[in-house]
């Protein structure tokens, strides 16, 4: 990121040295507070990649021997050699090393001077350092990351402000209304719906409102088991700090290392352990949000109310179009006594799905239950670290032999479910037995804790893998939906096939990776994730091809009875389908709320509507 900064500055200094000097003056000279804050402000920025997923020190690479390894110390996989990844990678895509170094040009900021003056007077930290701006100009959609790597960055925010508390936000919003600047709230930056993209049609000064400094737990109420938390807190910090008191929220979305509480509320997030703790809408007791009209919140902390339509549901999923969530009261739970991973191998995907359906029918789903299809199972296999001893390798061979030869599972059809049980020890073991008994009815074989744990670990590192792919002409992404039980199999098959077919029609030379997994079960359906990647050699505009294929896949999802999104949200990426999804009247209702709350379109990220 240092390199980026200097590059950015050098480019700028060639073009508009005056602006740069002004900028430095602004950033360092003027605001002592800002400078001081700057250290902590940029803390996350320092340790995270600017053009890829996650921490800078954690990445996949092929070492000199040509073996894959995962660097850093943060994950279970860190520092390990992954001997089968290369073969899988080559077998699936065909790899070719060529890395392009980016050349970045950032347009000078469009600043609203009176706003800045007033902000200065109000004592709110701010910056228009290009690095700060670029960092907050994007989420993690493929096209956004690809553009960063290629050095083609579109409109970026003109400045960044860091409120440190609710009243700071009130001031900022008030000033924004007064000076008519556009605010885009920024939490963890993990959006995958183009929600953070600055609309190019926006002519006003765009200010990114970074909530990262509002990251304190304000109080914990052990009587009611609630905690009052500032919305900028990052998931893992919230969990760690609550753990210190013996509590947790249990909300663990896959992005929890980087995503923020406010972001969860704004997108209707879902955590992997929702079976025990619920999704975000079940977890929040009280929300405080600053809008151009003023602050919206309920008057008490009652657990449920019948006071007309729940105003929380205007806020949940509003994707930053109505205001900034500043504080949230959330349910907390004592840390569970015991946790146990598990996994089950099924002879085929259909059987696996039938088992998940039965588990949901009996309402005995463990904290988490996931099912990956065969392609994903093979991919998971490729991420198996080098075994440390001959004995282990022998054991692995034996397991494989048992499953494929003795039990007659076809390695090209079998699929795996991963499980996570949580609670007190006795109940967990009992629960475990119940689930394994059901699995057995569908031909499932218990496949050990280790495989289960690796499955969950995969969730966190899979995002890193995309960066490796991009080094080797492979691009890809995941997208999700929710779908009723009776249609899941048809939907999965059709969407996967549509992806393959669309790729072929658009000149993709190698068959794409097109796989899916179930990540959540509900009474009436499931949440399904699709992973899709292809080798783009020979394509002149791979991102466009990617987008067309994803678009087609989404059409297919909708045609097969799937929803527009289960928890990623709509953003700008899926906006075109909103009317079809919620009906014209529904969209009109949402629009009229926006019209009332924010008539000037101060929160002008143009998501959703």
């Amino acid at each position, binding site marked *: 990121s240092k390199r980026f900064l200097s590059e950015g500055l050098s480019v700028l200094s060639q073009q508009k040295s005056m602006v740069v000097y002004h900028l430095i003056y602004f950033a360092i000279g003027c605001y002592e507070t800002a400078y001081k804050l700057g250290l902590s402000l940029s803390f996350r920025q320092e340790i995270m990649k600017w053009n890829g997923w996650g921490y800078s020190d954690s990445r996949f690479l092929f070492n000199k021997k040509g073996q894959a390894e995962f660097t850093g110390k943060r994950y279970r996989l860190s520092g390990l050699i992954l001997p089968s990844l290369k073969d899988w990678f080559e077998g699936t895509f065909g790899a070719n090393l060529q890395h392009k170094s980016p050349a970045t040009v950032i347009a000078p900021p469009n600043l609203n001077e009176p706003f800045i003056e007033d902000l200065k007077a109000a004592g709110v930290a701010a910056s228009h350092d290009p690095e700060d701006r670029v960092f907050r100009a994007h989420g993690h959609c493929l096209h956004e990351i690809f553009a960063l790597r290629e050095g083609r960055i579109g409109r970026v925010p003109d400045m960044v402000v860091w409120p440190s508390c609710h009243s700071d936000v009130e001031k900022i919003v008030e000033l924004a209304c007064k000076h008519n600047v556009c605010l885009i709230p920024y939490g963890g930056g993990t959006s995958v719906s183009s929600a953070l993209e600055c609309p190019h049609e926006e002519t006003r000064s765009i200010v990114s409102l970074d909530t990262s400094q509002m990251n304190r737990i304000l109080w914990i109420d052990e009587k009611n088991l609630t905690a009052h938390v500032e919305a900028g807190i990052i998931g893992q910090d919230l969990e760690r700090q609550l753990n210190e008191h013996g509590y947790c929220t249990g909300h663990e979305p896959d992005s929890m290392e980087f995503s923020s509480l406010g972001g969860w509320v704004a997108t209707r997030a879902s955590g992997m352990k929702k079976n025990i703790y619920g999704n975000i809408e079940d977890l929040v007791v009280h929300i405080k949000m600053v809008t151009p009209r003023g602050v919206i919140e309920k008057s008490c902390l009652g657990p449920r109310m019948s006071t007309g339509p729940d105003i929380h549901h205007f806020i949940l999923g509003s994707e930053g179009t109505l205001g900034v969530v500043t504080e949230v009261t959330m349910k907390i739970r004592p840390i569970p006594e015991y946790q146990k991973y598990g996994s089950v191998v099924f002879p085929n995907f259909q059987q696996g799905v039938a088992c998940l359906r039965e588990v949901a029918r009996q309402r005995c789903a463990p904290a988490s239950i996931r099912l990956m299809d065969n392609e994903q199972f093979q991919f998971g296999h490729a991420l198996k670290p080098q075994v440390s001893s001959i004995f282990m390798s022998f054991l692995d061979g034996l397991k494989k032999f048992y499953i494929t030869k003795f039990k007659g599972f076809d390695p090209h059809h079998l699929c795996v479910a991963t499980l996570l049980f949580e609670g007190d020890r006795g109940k967990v073991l009992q629960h475990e037995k119940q689930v394994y008994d059901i699995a057995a009815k569908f031909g499932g074989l218990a496949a050990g804790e280790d495989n289960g744990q690796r499955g969950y670990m995969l969730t966190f590192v899979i995002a890193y893998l995309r960066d490796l792919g991009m080094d080797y002409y492979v691009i890809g992404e995941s997208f999700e939906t929710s779908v009723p039980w009776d249609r899941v199999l048809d939907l999965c*098959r059709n969407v996967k096939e549509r992806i393959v077919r669309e790729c072929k029609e658009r000149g993709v030379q190698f068959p794409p990776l097109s796989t899916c997994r179930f990540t959540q079960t509900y009474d009436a359906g499931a949440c399904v994730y699709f992973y899709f990647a292809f080798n783009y050699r020979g394509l002149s505009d791979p991102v466009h091809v990617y987008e067309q294929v994803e678009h087609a896949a989404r059409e297919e999802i909708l045609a*097969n009875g799937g929803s527009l999104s289960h928890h990623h949200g709509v953003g700008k990426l899926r906006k075109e389908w909103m009317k079809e999804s919620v009906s014209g009247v529904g969209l009109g209702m949402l629009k009229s709320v926006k019209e009332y709350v924010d008539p000037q379109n101060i929160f002008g990220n143009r998501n959703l509507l």
Partner: protein
Amino acid sequence: MASRALYSPRHPMLKKRDDFEDILEERRRSSDLRYALRCYTPTLYRGLVPCKASMLKSIVLQSDHLQYVIKQVSSESGESTEGVSEEASLILDEMAHCLQLSTIRFFAFTLSKAFKRLFRSVCVNEEGIQRLQQAVQEHPVVLLPSHRSYMDFLMMSYLLYTYDLPLPVIAAGMDFMSMKFVGEMLRMSGAFFIRRSFGGDKLYWAVFSEYVKTMLRNGYAPIEFFLEGTRSRTCKSLTPKTGLLNIVMEPFFKGELFDVNLVPVSISYERILEESLYARELLGIPKPKESTSGLLKARRVLSEDYGSMYVYFGHPVSVRSLAEGKINRSQYNLLPRYIPQKPSADTHEFLSDAAFRLVRIQEENMVLKPWVLIATLLLQNPDGLDLSSLAEQTDWLRHLALAFGAFLDWPDHEACSEVVSCSLALHRHLLSVSAGHVQLSVTDVPQVETTPEEAVFHQAVVVLSCASYRNQILHVFLRPALLAMAMQSANSNRKDDVYNGFNFLRKVFSNEFILCPGDSVQDFEEACYLLMKRGVLQVLEHEIVMSASGHSTLAFLSSVLDPFLQGYQVVCRYLCEETNENLTEKEFIPAVRSFALKLILAGRLKCYEALSSDLQKNALAAFLRLKAVRKVKVGDQVTLKVNKVAVNSLEDILGGKIPTQKPILARL
């Protein structure tokens, strides 16, 4: 891709069609027995769910859909669910096929023998077979052959066996079932039987549709059915039915299948086995009920020469690409998929459009023999032609047909006169040739005294038989011919006027010919384009002008449709002059027939085709559609109420007495 091919404007001359290979050649060279017993390993669908015919029944009976309908029927009728289930099971037993390879082998042997005697060659486009091989692996396949003869589906199964393709299951009419033994044989060769009408019978429909869908979804076998619903007695394609098409498309609409491949197959015969049988049937000489003994009598058929037979497997049409942008599949999202859902208006329109287009593909891929051209000319010249002039005109017509995109199988390097005399020889039973003069005529008249009525019928059999050959090429001339007729009756050269006339004729004849609803502008433009290309017309911005040399072509074209025009006029005249208040639907055909017969006997009508019940039926359907006639139900009888003013003006327009104008159309 398929949809693009389907909807692209046609460039007839540019279209390259596949070459044919004669499959009998191999059969004449090697042992039929070895052929019948050879190792049969068909290419299979990649998503195949293996299951036996017996399993199939229980899957169907256990299906959510059928269970739902059984409960519904039971609660509506008060009968117990067990009773209704039992009924469903009986329906299924009556319906289901039990495809057996041994029966197929039996047929492979006997049909080899039969085909070799009947046909000089059976020609198949092998590229089409290769495409089918590919299609069969990718998605479930529906075979849609044209239907001109009983031979059709025997031939289809025979061919698929020959080329190591999965054997189809075939939707057949119940009438076959009454043929003892043969019905069972057909069942064992993959036929399943459907009642001809089961309008309101929910349970029957549920069993039937679930049976077909289950086979399709599991990739059990290619489903084969006839879009036209029944054999065309006239060799014109029939207006397609959409019921079964909806059934095979629904698994795609509902997301149960990624795609379904529809394969139109065009089967054409140089000489049709049922030729005179059809003609008699059209004239109301009752057809013998299908019976085994009848079939045995038909053995006589085996001793005759039926020339060549052609089977053209068209490009597979993907339902997915066909439906793209036309069907919003999410309309099926809000109802559990096992609950039967009537197709929406959109879906209906789509189905009908798709069905018409598929039939047009069948038509376009139908191989035409030189005789078809000769028959057209002979019908236009009832007094006959000299051989030399026949040859000359045939050659002229051949070039016209080719220019319009006809799929003509004309022997290479043979003089036209040679080709003509070969054709005449094959069809000598319809002709008399003396002193170089050819005429359509009755050849094997029994020498006993015949009444004038009988003589007319004998002649009519010959004319209708011959017309069935002309009809095969009608689709090539249809659009230009409608334009030619419209120009004749229009009282100006204005494009609008001509188009109005064209559109009117198109409306009147849309039960008679395959005219896709909603394609009138496209058809008009196609007709203009073809005639312009031929140098017959000049199409200006607002006018259509005949060129100096265009007269003969236009005259020929309008006389191609003349028998239909005359026939419809006869029906009009009948409705105006003869009908009383209580004409029942049943009496209609015999009454029109005797009216036409009277006109012929009185020398006031020369057109024997007016006697054809097919034409009369189509005319009635058209008049009903145009609201010139109304159906009224009185008790269990349906009577026809005639709006004489409307029928009169229809007749006038058809007769060219009044030009087509908008107000008159509106009055209709």
